[in-house]
């Protein structure tokens, strides 16, 4: 017998006879069914589910961090692209671009973020703790400039 039940007189014995007898019979079948469950498989299944849930949570945490870093990179790149635009039609100097993040408009920032996230492949991870303009390639910076120009012309 499994469960909490103690032997001897208990709450079940105080039930009306018709309920008590039917309950005992139903319980006997429930207990027989419970004896047929595969406890070993259940143990493995539970531990596996717990492990999978932990891995998913870790992966989600990691994806969240990567997304934050991409946004940080986009903001810095946005500052660089704005600075490039300020120089009008002059060819951009890639190395040593001046940064002026404070001067970035919200709409510019949004456009740059979308552009950077589009340029970066989905599996790109940013491992460095410091994100600088140097992290973006010349091609990426040119594409950003183009995105800014498109945004301006809308």
């Amino acid at each position: 017998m499994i469960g909490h039940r103690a032997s001897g007189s208990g709450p079940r014995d105080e039930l009306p006879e018709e309920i008590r007898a039917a309950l005992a019979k139903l319980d006997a079948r429930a207990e027989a069914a419970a004896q047929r469950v595969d406890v070993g498989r259940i143990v493995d299944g539970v531990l596996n589910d717990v492990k999978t849930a932990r891995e998913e949570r870790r992966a989600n945490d990691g994806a969240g961090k990567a997304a934050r870093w991409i946004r940080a990179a986009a903001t810095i790149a946005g500052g660089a692209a704005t600075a490039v635009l300020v120089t009008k039609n002059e060819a951009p100097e890639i190395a040593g671009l001046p940064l002026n993040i404070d001067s970035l408009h919200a709409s510019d920032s949004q456009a740059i973020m979308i552009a950077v996230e589009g340029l970066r492949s989905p599996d790109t991870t940013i491992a460095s703790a410091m994100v600088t303009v140097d992290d973006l390639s010349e091609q990426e910076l040119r594409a950003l400039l183009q995105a800014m120009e498109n945004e301006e012309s809308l």
Partner: protein
Amino acid sequence: MGAALEAVTPDQDLISQWQRGDEAAARELVTRHARALARFLAMQGAPESELDDLTQEAFFKAFRSIGTFRGGSSFRTWLLTIGGNVLKDRQRQWKHRKVLALTPDVADPAADPAGQAEARLAESKLQESLGRLARLQREVFLLRANEGLDYGEISAALGISEGAARVHYHHAVKRLKGWMA
């Protein structure tokens, strides 16, 4: 008394060990309580074919929220109430499909056939009547009548007052009696 008493690690200690990452403690908790949980679910109308899955899901949910277990009731009683929640959710999904409950008894050829048929009818009526009870009434009834728990533990596990547990139990018995008459 010849044999020495086997030392059994209390559930609360196993829970603490599991929270520190000891997988063996989790294995022991599942092994210790899986069948009692499966029986409780079967009593509430869970089909036998689903018992393994329901038991596994209830343990998974229990382990995920083990930090909320305060010890007001035993681990097993707390687990049974989680099992009740899992079953309720699953029963919503089963609403539109026919599910077989427990495997029918194998008839004893030596027993009186008329008596057997009557007993089977009464059992079937009880099972149907339990399904008609409100969930809280059914759980209080089974925890009290079938698990032999006192009202204090039932109230702690279900988050209701002792008085409410008594009222639910008495209403359940009254209704079952009326439906089975």
